[in-house]
């Protein structure tokens, strides 16, 4: 009886995973390749697809460093200081996790769109944010804001401030302390945060799609490309792009595993 229950539980778990994870994952690869490699190659060499990849990489390349710098500063301030509002600040940083990405995108439209708070001013000076790269970068920064700070704060707290004080007593400047003492101590936590930020930045759909206007070949990122290609019955193109995104996910997962192991060793 006990044994049967045990098998039943395992069957339920495996069935559930198969239904929501394994079969859809396999289906992506099947759909992309079931007519051979050719349709896939032609899909990933189309101009719109290459533009989408380019845009995705550019957005990540801008959002990632900005959030790394912001995340490091915030983490240090929170980990090394006691001040009123510290707990509140920590929850505010987590806000992008709890706000729906679509709402985040909408917020940006409401601020910078043509009829938004800053819309008129921006139009007068000729700066376009909505339906353009700046808006998409803003949306991406918003949704990936918490990752670095969240990963680095506990590492900094565990490290304590004594090593920094020791370095200072040995004559090191703030800059030298950061590069020679803090960074080597937090590097695995930081790298983990960077990985999470990057995979989310490249995979984000909701917020970016609201502000982008989804103009194929112009303001379409990889996830948006997938949606549009599918809607337009370009199934091979859609699944071809999906395969690329899925592979990105797999690579992130593997690196995440490696980094996580290092984090726990330290």
């Amino acid at each position, binding site marked *: 009886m006990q044994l049967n229950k045990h098998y039943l539980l395992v069957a339920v778990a495996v069935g559930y995973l198969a239904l929501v994870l394994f079969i859809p994952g396999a289906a992506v690869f099947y759909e992309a390749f079931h007519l051979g490699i050719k349709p896939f190659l032609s899909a990933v060499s189309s101009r719109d697809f290459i533009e989408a990849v380019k845009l995705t990489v550019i957005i990540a390349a801008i959002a990632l460093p900005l959030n790394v710098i912001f995340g490091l500063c915030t983490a240090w301030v929170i980990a090394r200081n006691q001040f009123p509002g510290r707990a509140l600040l920590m929850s505010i940083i987590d806000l992008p996790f709890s706000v729906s990405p679509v709402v985040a995108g909408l917020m940006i439209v409401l601020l910078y769109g043509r009829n938004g708070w800053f819309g008129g001013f921006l139009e007068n000076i000729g700066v376009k944010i909505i339906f353009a790269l700046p808006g998409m970068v803003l949306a991406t920064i918003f949704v990936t804001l918490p990752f670095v700070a969240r990963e680095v704060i506990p590492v900094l707290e565990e490290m304590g401030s*004594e*090593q920094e*004080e*020791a*370095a*200072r*007593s*040995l*004559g*090191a*400047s703030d800059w*030298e302390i950061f590069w*020679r*003492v803090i960074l*080597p*101590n937090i590097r695995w936590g930081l790298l983990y945060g960077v990985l999470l930020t990057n995979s989310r930045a490249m995979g984000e759909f909701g917020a970016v799609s609201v502000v982008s206007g989804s103009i194929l070949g112009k303001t379409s990122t990889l996830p948006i490309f997938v949606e549009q290609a599918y809607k337009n019955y370009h199934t091979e193109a859609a699944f071809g792009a999906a395969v690329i995104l899925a592979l990105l996910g797999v690579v992130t997962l593997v690196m995440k595993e490696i980094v996580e192991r290092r984090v726990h060793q*330290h």
Partner: protein
Amino acid sequence: MSIIINQVSKKFGDFQALDRINLEIKEGGLVALLGPSGSGKSTLLRAIAGLETPDTGSIIINGKDATHLDVAQRNIGFVFQHYALFKHLTIRQNIAFGLEIRKHPPKRIKQKVDELLALIQLEGLGNRYPAQLSGGQRQRVALARALAVEPGVLLLDEPFGALDAKVRKELRAWLRRLHDEVHVTSVFVTHDQEEAMEVADEIVVMNQGHIEQVGTPAEIYDHPATAFVMSFVGEVNILPGVAGLFCNLPTSQSHVYVRPHELDLLHHEHESSTPATVKRIIHLGREIQAELALPDDFVVFANLSREKFAELNLEAGQQVFVKPQNAKSFADLHRAVLS
């Protein structure tokens, strides 16, 4: 380098950590800041280092006002209770850190690191990481790292506090020898009076943000300036100054302080002796301690040599007479010791 502390105060919220401290530390000295936790000793040390900024007052290092100088510019070496070694660097790299910051040539750094590794007797372990060393070894590395930059002042915050008793004892003796070789002005914080007595030339006894007394170990022990010092440094019996107990003392003072080894036990009544009952005999090894009940149920402890104990032939329940050889009372009501 000499250090002069001038009217230094520091508050953390409502807590007065330092209250108008004045202190002069002479060049080349080895000074202990001794006190219970919360007495302000660590805060004072960190203020000298520049790791805390005093609210008021000034700190003069080597004739120069250092109150607002950054830690990096004070030319001090600091040793932390939990070593604070750089975990990601080897022992050699740890010791070389300050020299590399100062951009010394690599050859000179290597030579200096070799010298220091020899000084701390860890020649073979230069390429290990701190996690591979024992606590005592790590603290020696921390000392070498601080000494590498040839600081004018060496500051040590409870340097042996995290070590077990045996290693602590070895390191104390080693620190004393090291100071006799290197002669750098050194200040260390401890809550262990035995450690302060053993290592320091001069002891600064602190309590509740004040300095109670400054003196050599002998002065502190034999001529305590305050009730706090008498009770914090060494064992002491504290008795209410009731008339009839040790009646040769001025009874106007509220309490009488007698060290356990300065109580004589007699079989017969004597001038200024007090009758007592032996409650318990405690063998401490070198000495024997007798727990005595005085009239009105006051309890005192008397320490006797083994010979004296044998001579008196003491047993629990016996009637004896207690006579202090030396007892003190203090005009100042001690600030907080009775515990």
